[in-house]
């Protein structure tokens, strides 16, 4: 979430889930909320139907929330910077900006103004396909509403310029002063249950817990004191770079805890080659995953209902999970395994419970310092929570931004790394669906969920289907320059002409065999949302 951190000084969701219910206007983009964050979608749908809140939807697909939308902007995939700049162009030229906020709370406005001046609605229409009139309406609605909230997810970040997409949304919020108050803000929705926590706890190559920098001696010092070692000062590798380093032989041993890169990483063939090149691959998981199948050592762990601990949700709320049943066989909690291993390698760790570890987390992580297991026994607390009297923080940046002044960034539209051409005429976009989850190691082993989506599928527009002689339910081969998979045709109007959608949950039709490894240079997020493919009916 590098984009938000640049603009505000913190990459976390600025407002809260309950707070979304108070909004007068939503700008929703790159999130199929009713499928991927269904309960957050209920807050939005209620605000629209019961309170008359307005909803601007910017999405290439005709998703469920479209039914609730006041305005639907159907941008071509990969053109987000353009239409967001376009909204700001309208806001500035019509004088709808919040000058007081811009002057008092932000910096670099002149540069922004200069950049967006060329993104007139007419110019943006050419790039994005969004009618100029709709863009103007959306800009006015967003800027003029009492409290407007931006909500986004992977559809914004999983692009080669994903960081710029996020910065652009932050620009828009600052320009209009739609931040730091109830019902406003820039709100990224996290996909998996503890993405926020994994970031806070610094499973990131450049950070120590609470976003301290590994490169700063002063940041390392408190950790070195508590941990009793001196720490490495060079930024480590991100996932895509770890995979590359494994392929080149620079990384020889890889320890994977609860992750399945064989399914979730772009370009699966490349990942497979890399993993097979390792001297040691350890996989710690509840099931034998596609990645586990390549491992030298597989360690069985306790599942979600078999251990104690905390998760931090998308609104920064630290909440308990509790042991309800015993783990099967000899499986044990991940923390126990890591402790055993650390001690075998000469450490002297004495944790006897998840709570012991959390107490250490509190000690070294300022934003978690006031949170205790006792305090969150009944209801979670939102960080920052600096001391045990502090009630937690629902809205960030209300008096000042975490970094002081909000920073406008200059972002220009660039074309996606791969666009359709004669040979590969269709634009493939990927994502999740309601009934499955991530790489589906869990959800495909649940009777109820499986019963709702038995087969891997591709969504395709009726016109494209007709041209290719494809009918609903046909078996289809989808190919890109990197590989091909077989799926069933779901002919419907959700995608625009020329665009197809495939969910990425299915191992027998791993859509990441088709995607490419072009990545955002700042956030290192792969471009899943745009690649070129061709399809044909399998005889």
């Amino acid at each position, binding site marked *: 979430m590098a984009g938000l951190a640049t603009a505000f000084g913190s990459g976390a969701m600025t407002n809260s889930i309950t707070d979304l219910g108070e909004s007068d206007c939503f700008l929703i983009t790159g999130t199929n909320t009713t499928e991927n964050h269904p309960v957050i979608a209920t807050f939005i749908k209620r605000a629209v139907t019961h309170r008359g809140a307005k909803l601007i939807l910017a999405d290439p697909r005709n998703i469920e929330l479209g039914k609730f939308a006041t305005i639907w902007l159907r941008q071509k995939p990969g053109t987000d910077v353009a239409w967001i700049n376009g909204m700001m162009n309208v806001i500035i030229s019509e004088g709808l900006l919040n000058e007081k906020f811009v002057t008092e709370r932000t910096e670099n406005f002149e540069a922004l103004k200069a950049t967006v001046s060329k993104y007139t609605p007419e110019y943006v229409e050419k790039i994005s396909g969004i009618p100029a009139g709709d863009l103007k309406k959306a800009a006015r609605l967003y800027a003029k509403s009492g409290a407007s909230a931006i909500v986004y997810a992977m559809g914004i970040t999983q692009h080669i310029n994903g960081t710029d997409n996020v910065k652009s949304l932050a620009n828009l919020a600052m320009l209009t002063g739609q931040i730091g108050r109830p019902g406003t803000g820039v709100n990224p929705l996290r996909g998996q249950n503890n993405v926020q926590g994994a970031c806070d706890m610094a499973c990131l190559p450049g950070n120590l817990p609470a976003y301290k920098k590994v490169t700063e001696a002063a940041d390392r010092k408190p950790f070195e004191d508590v941990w009793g070692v001196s720490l490495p000062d060079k930024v480590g590798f991100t996932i895509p770079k770890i995979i590359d380093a494994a392929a080149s032989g620079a990384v020889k041993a890889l320890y994977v805890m609860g992750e399945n890169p064989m399914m979730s990483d772009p370009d699966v063939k490349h990942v497979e080659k890399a993993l097979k090149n390792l001297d040691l691959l350890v996989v710690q998981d509840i099931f034998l995953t596609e990645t586990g199948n390549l491992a030298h050592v597989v360690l069985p762990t306790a599942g979600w209902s078999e251990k104690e601990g905390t998760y931090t949700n998308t609104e920064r709320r630290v*909440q308990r999970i*509790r042991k309800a049943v015993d783990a099967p066989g000899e499986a044990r909690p991940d923390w126990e395994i890591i402790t055993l291993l650390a001690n075998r390698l000469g450490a002297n760790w004495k944790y006897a419970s998840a709570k012991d570890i959390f107490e250490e987390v509190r000690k070294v992580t300022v934003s978690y310092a006031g949170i205790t297991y006792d305090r969150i026994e009944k209801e979670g607390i939102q960080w920052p929570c600096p001391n045990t009297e502090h009630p937690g923080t629902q809205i960030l940046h209300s008096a000042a931004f975490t970094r002081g002044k909000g920073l406008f960034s200059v972002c220009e539209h660039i074309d996606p790394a791969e666009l359709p051409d004669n040979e590969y005429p269709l634009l493939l976009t990927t994502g999740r669906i309601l009934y499955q989850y991530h790489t589906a190691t869990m959800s495909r082993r649940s009777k109820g969920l499986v019963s709702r989506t038995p087969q891997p599928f591709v969504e395709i527009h009726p016109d494209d289907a007709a041209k290719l002689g494809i009918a609903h339910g046909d078996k289809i081969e989808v190919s890109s320059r990197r590989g091909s998979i077989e799926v069933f045709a779901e002919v419907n109007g959700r995608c625009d002409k020329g665009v197809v959608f495939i969910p990425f949950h299915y191992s027998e039709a791993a859509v990441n065999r088709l995607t490419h490894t072009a990545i955002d240079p700042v956030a290192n997020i792969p471009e899943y949302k745009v690649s070129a493919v061709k399809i044909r009916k399998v005889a």
Partner: protein
Amino acid sequence: MVITIDGKKCEFTAGQTVYEVAKANGISIPVLCHHEQIKPVGACRVCVVEVEKARSLVASCAMPAEDGMVVHTSTPRVLSSRKLSVELLMTQGHHNCITCESSGDCVLQDLAYSLGIESPRFGEPETYRELEQANEMIVRDMNKCVLCGLCVRACNEVQVNQVLDYSGRGPTAAVGPAFGLTYENSDCVFCGECVRVCPVGALFEKQGRFQGRANDLEKVRTTCAYCGVGCQMDVNVKENRILKITTPREGAPAPNFGSLCIKGRFGYDFVSHEDRLTKPMIRVDGELKEATWDEAIAYVAEKLGSVKKKNGPDAVAGLSSARCTNEENYLFQKFLRAVIGTNNVDHCARL
């Protein structure tokens, strides 16, 4: 502003109903078709009270409190009216508590018991409706439906899924998806909100059926295993097995206030799947073979140690999971940084 309930002076703010004021002041009035997150409709008349100067009994759940009102919640007139209402509800359907999933956690059962209704004055209807149990998640037994309408209103007002509606009148009155469709063939997304609010055993979870009811179940509060919303839920356990996931009918905490989606409510059974790994394994001659923990830990430690020695700490890398806890993620990065000595640690947030 003040109203008097059973002799007690109760302060209230404009917009509060008599029922809400009573509840806030520790005076309990039974309700059936009322739910704190749903607009009151005053359908069942279980919550009636006597208001001085009002001609008839009023439904307290739908009656706004007015300054100076004097209310009595358990006069003989109230009790006999309530009793009649409950008896009528009981005789609308077939209530066989012996095998009902809701026994022990049923508003109608509690009402009949507390009002001392040994057996209702009227007979049961002749028709018996087939149960709908084709889908894997929710069973509908319309023989036990009391037509409170909470499922319809929850589907529309709370989840805004607009799947359920009322149909028919009198003896053919019913609730369900439009055109008499089954849940499975309708637009239902199996969020289970209707199951949560149903006050009786007309809608219930399928998988744990006949395996344990309210009094045998232990509820363990936890956070959903799936997406970043972090919904709070109760895992219902009997003899070391998860029988269902529920949320409190009322008074549920943030962030979800009792709502869930299909994954949270019905996606729990992966934990007891036969594919679960139960023993450490080490690859020997190309194949994964079972090993003891001691062997596995020794093997990994030895290999990590030798890679670190020969190729330096940065030849080691770790990928952690956004599905592991904070404690586990903290320890994982501490392990790589403090024990191995590398910053090569990342997780799948970007993916």
